[in-house]
């Protein structure tokens, strides 16, 4: 059972990762664009228990750290996604007002995405990675949040379906 869950979840994340790197990353989307992989990770965390969310955040972080376009050290994305995935699941798990309302989920993922980017930048600065200018950072963070706000509702039904498929549950959002 556990193996099946890991297998399905791993395959889904690997496919989204490839789609992000091979397709979405190639489009010159203005204002920093968006990451369907990050959105998937945060949505998955919002639908899971804190323990599963932390595990998923760890796996997704490792994949992002291994991405050729990542400049930070291995473990950088992992650390941020473990913490953020756990935090999302911790706040939403058991709260039907939060988890049962698609608007709440979308807003939570959008906010989490912005926090993830800012955290990545701040921890990157502490690890000695040169940051871009403040204006560019602001454009990227705000632009990404707006894109996430648009893309998340489109991805939500598919992610809920995939999550149900992996965990044999019936989520009602």
């Amino acid at each position, binding site marked *: 059972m556990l193996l099946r869950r890991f297998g399905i979840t791993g395959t889904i994340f690997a496919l989204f990762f490839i789609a992000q790197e091979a397709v979405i990353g190639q489009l010159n989307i203005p204002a920093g664009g968006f990451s369907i992989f990050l959105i998937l990770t945060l949505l998955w965390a919002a639908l899971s228990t804190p323990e599963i969310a*932390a595990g998923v955040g760890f796996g997704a972080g490792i994949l992002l750290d291994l991405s*050729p376009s990542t400049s930070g050290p291995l473990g950088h994305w992992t650390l941020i996604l473990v913490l953020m995935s756990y935090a999302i699941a911790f706040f939403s798990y058991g709260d039907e007002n939060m988890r049962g309302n698609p608007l709440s989920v979308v807003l939570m993922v959008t906010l989490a995405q912005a926090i993830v980017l800012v955290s990545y930048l701040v921890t990157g600065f502490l690890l000695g990675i040169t940051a871009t200018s403040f204006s560019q950072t602001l454009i990227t963070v705000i632009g990404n949040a707006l894109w996430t706000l648009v893309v998340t509702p489109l991805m939500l039904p598919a992610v809920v379906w995939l999550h149900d498929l992996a965990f044999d549950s019936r989520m009602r959002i």
Partner: protein
Amino acid sequence: MRNGGENRGRLLLVILIVSSLFLITLDLRGVNLIDGLRGGTHTALSPFQRAGNVVLTPVKNFVNDVTHLGRTRNQIEDLRKQNLKLREQLISRKNQDGEVEQLKSILDLAGTARFKIVSAKVIAQGSSLVFTRTITIDAGSGTGIKKNMTVISGNGLVGVVKEVFANSAIVMLATDPAFKVGVRIAGSQQIGILAGLGSSTANLQLLDNQTTIKVGDILLARGSNNAQPFVPGVPVGQVTSVSNAAGAVTQSATVKYFANFGALGVVSVVVKAPKADPRDALAPVKPVPTPVPTVTVFVTPSPSTSPSAASN
């Protein structure tokens, strides 16, 4: 029971955080296994990126065409109707022509400087979400490309090779905020440091406070020891504005790069630099205004023949 579950969750969280910090420490200490993992991921992703590039190129070209419709909308609209059936073929041809044009200009530049180059297609762009500016090219160590080699386009400096794999390489663009290059001003030979800003412009800081710069000055790469990471003489950009801040130790300026980073299709890696520094030979020639011929007409007044003059 519930406390037990919460404790397990917290323990798992702590273990995952410690694992992440362990990985960061290993990476910062330069453990080879991690480089190998990244290389493996890159090698595994390359075919997907190539396929994505092949599929997306017509779409990107189409979007690019559409965004330029504003100026001559009516004319383009007519042409679009006439050429609807041939659009796909035309886009493909335009793409090839553009690549040939870029390649030709690179060869012109490299030929003048006697650089030995390896040309490559850009197959992927790094995500700006990670606040870096990189591209991936379809040539790697198999063609003689090594880390820290200069990358040029037909217009000038593009960046420097950051990572090399068997069949591909990652290039840090000159627009990356971490990018720095020593430059000199063509003609006056003043030297300075140019730093990327994350956009198509860069910041120039002169090293000598006795020298001055002016708008329009052309910057060339100063060159590094053994021509790595930078070969000398490559055109970099042009000064667009000069900052004369009171109290500043040296002058600084904003520079616009010659290379068009939004339309990089083909680039070249300089695998061997010439023994002789090309000096200013690669600097783009400033346009000289065409003199307009002037005609001067001299008019000599003729003697007056009025009746009053005659009576006098």
